[in-house]
């Protein structure tokens, strides 16, 4: 799933490690989400979106899901 995490992170000048600690996960998970290998759970997606003060759909691209 496409996300805007990388861009949002760069805007805030945050490292993957810092974001991971802020949302309660590991750096590897953030990397996997950013490179679209892993799809975050609803809880993690919510935490990430809330951390950036955005809605989930602003951070995660649901276009593929909406097609079904």
């Amino acid at each position, binding site marked *: 799933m496409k996300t805007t995490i990388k861009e949002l992170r760069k805007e805030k000048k945050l490292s993957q490690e810092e974001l991971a600690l802020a949302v309660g996960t*590991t750096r590897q998970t953030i990397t996997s989400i950013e490179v679209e290998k892993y799809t975050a759970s609803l809880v993690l997606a919510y935490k990430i979106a809330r951390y950036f003060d955005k809605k989930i759909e602003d951070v995660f691209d649901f276009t593929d899901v909406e097609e079904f």
Partner: protein
Amino acid sequence: MENYKNTIKKRIVIMTVVCLVVVSVYVVNLFHDFGTVNENFSDYIKGFQLGLIIVLVIFMIGLMRKYFIALKNEQSLKKLFFEETDERARMISEKTGGNVIIACALCILIAGIIAGYFNEIIFFTLTGCCLFLLVTRKVLKLYYRGKY
């Protein structure tokens, strides 16, 4: 986080007890001959057990060191907690058999060591089986870490 701190303290106590028990059992075993079918094989079994105990104790000491550092530093504790509760790591662990494989491998290994006192073929078969389980799990973990 306070609950997790208590969990870590309990783990340290359990690991210390396990280390002491394992070393004590080995020392008792050294001075007491339980009798085996093959005298040459007896040395092999003792060597295997010593190697296993050394690896186990080193592994546990390494883990305990990690836990002690986490207990002293709040940031390390948080990081360790997130590592253990990470959803991706949990998913990969579940896909590779979770704790069931580890429990099975451990039971097979213990059975193999006990069987070693009576029959060397059973010992080699069970130890090989345990090794196969652990290697398969590790390979699958590496594969899924690359995939997800």
